């Protein structure tokens, strides 16, 4: 372990805002992309069902 404590880890030498702001943005982007993929799949499958009924 290179960190003295967990609070030292989270503070990132006083640069926590910049480090976690970067990783946080990536996390949000990934989650948003996965939700969008799930929704698009649902929509496409519903459309395919409809075109079968028609």
């Amino acid at each position, binding site marked *: *372990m*290179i*960190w003295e404590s967990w609070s030292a*880890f989270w503070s*990132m*030498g*006083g*640069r926590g*805002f*910049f*480090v976690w*702001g*970067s*990783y946080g*943005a*990536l996390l949000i*982007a*990934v989650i948003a*992309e*996965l939700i*969008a*993929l799930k929704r*698009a*799949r649902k929509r*496409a*499958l519903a*459309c*395919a*069902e409809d*075109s*079968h009924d028609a």
Partner: protein
Amino acid sequence: MARTEQQSNDRFNGKWFWRYASPAAFYPVAGTIEKLCWFLAISLTIVGLYIGFFRAPTDATQGEVYRVIYIHVPAAWMAMVIYLAMAFWCAIGLAFGTRLSFMMSHALAPTGAIMAAISLWTGALWGRPTWGTYWVWDARLTSTLILFFLYVGYIALAAAFDDKKKGDRASALIALIGAVNVPIIYFSVQWWNTLHQGASVRPGGSSMATIMLTAMMIMAFAFWAYCIAVAMNRLRTQIIERERSAAWIQSSVRK
């Protein structure tokens, strides 16, 4: 599953690689690739971040903020690689008229846009404590911003046509012309005086400490795997959308 589609692909018979140019034949393959890439993406991210945050030491000049590099550089690489991949598939699509090629390109575009946005965002947050500014209009940053707008333009143009084939061709032109921007981004730090530091990793050598480089390369592979997994997922959705009247889709949707 692919049997019914095969009559329509008679002209491609005899060449196995043409077989996989058929959406019906590639659909299950894409599913397998996606699963494998999810496994790789998750395990590589765990290992990469562990080494990056708990094994790699503090940087002598930049302190802790350098740890943004583990996502900044892979995102920037993927933003460039994905654009070139799109240009490649668009060129194949225009040359051979293969439907799957354009779908491949459309499936990559949103992820490429996200990667460009992430590289700009993390770059801004890294730039503030190291250069004293979030943004500067220098060659590297400006050309990356242009890359982001090229992605947005591509996506908007592909969606703007009611006739999907016209949308495919119009957006393919943006992908091909815009590809000129990618080498400009890559070489910008050599060609112009810029605030952005030069490449720490280039073919044939690296100026980074081995453990930092190891973590970054593992994260780069994790990003590759993530992008492929997401693109395969999006590709499968597009196949369902575009081939929804085909018999094989109907039989797989109904069960």
